[in-house]
């Protein structure tokens, strides 16, 4: 699968999830690729099926909190760090599901339980995007292979 196609699928998947669950838009991508900052919150999960690999997302604590508040319909002040991290795990799960159906509409995938392990920055074998949102940036990293 050409990386350029996967790039577009990542943007579509993130946009679908954020627009329907958080009522927020993806405004575009950041041309200057960079990895997550040291203080950013992250979530990662593995998937296995017709394709196997790993997806990670990362964003600043304030961006995550804003997204979590929109998702849960709560005031930002009511949300603690734990809730933000839990939300980020669920967000990674939904983005991964939305992405995998774009890879293979009929494929059945097993997804691991997301964890808040740190995301890596751009590196060989990974397709990374930094997406511009209403309220900050979202880093998405994907490593994908095809099962032999």
């Amino acid at each position, binding site marked *: 699968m050409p990386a350029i196609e996967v790039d577009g699928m990542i943007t579509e998947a993130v946009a679908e*999830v954020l627009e329907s669950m958080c009522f927020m838009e993806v405004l575009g991508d950041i041309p200057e690729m960079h990895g997550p900052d040291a203080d950013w919150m992250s979530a990662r999960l593995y998937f296995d099926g017709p394709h196997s690999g790993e997806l990670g997302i990362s964003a600043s604590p304030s961006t995550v909190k804003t997204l979590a508040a929109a*998702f849960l319909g709560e005031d930002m002040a009511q949300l603690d760090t734990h809730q933000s991290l839990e939300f980020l795990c*669920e967000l990674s*799960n939904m983005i991964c*599901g*939305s992405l995998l*159906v774009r890879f293979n509409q*009929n494929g*059945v995938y*097993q997804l691991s339980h997301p964890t808040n392990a740190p995301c890596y920055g751009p590196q060989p074998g990974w397709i990374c995007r930094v997406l511009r949102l209403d309220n900050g940036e979202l880093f998405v990293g994907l490593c994908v292979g095809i099962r032999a």
Partner: protein
Amino acid sequence: MAFNVLIVDDSPTMRKFIRKVLILTGLEIGECIDAGDGCEALSLLKANWVDIILTDINMPTMDGEELMRCLAADLLVGSIPVIVISTDRSQERLRRMFELGAKDYVTKPFLPETLGRVMAKVLTGAPYAGN
């Protein structure tokens, strides 16, 4: 008539989100209980009667497919309608869940009105009026 609901999802965030969505549907919701996996759900069903179960598939300990099998094997709780709410939207998974007895299937991400429409159809057979 108020409907009692059991939400089964390993994500506390998603359980909380679904609770909020249930309020937004405009349906009359009675008691709303939740479980983090299929085992916990079966345990709750021993002591609580619910009118509908909303379950995820991918969960630790007991996943949604196994939960559906256990429900089907029990004459009492086997009659409770189940709606699957999952990120997995492959045709094969949908087919398997419907074979196991799911009444409907909502894929994440979803809009509140989507869940409202599906629940109204399953619970009352009536078109969804919205909130």
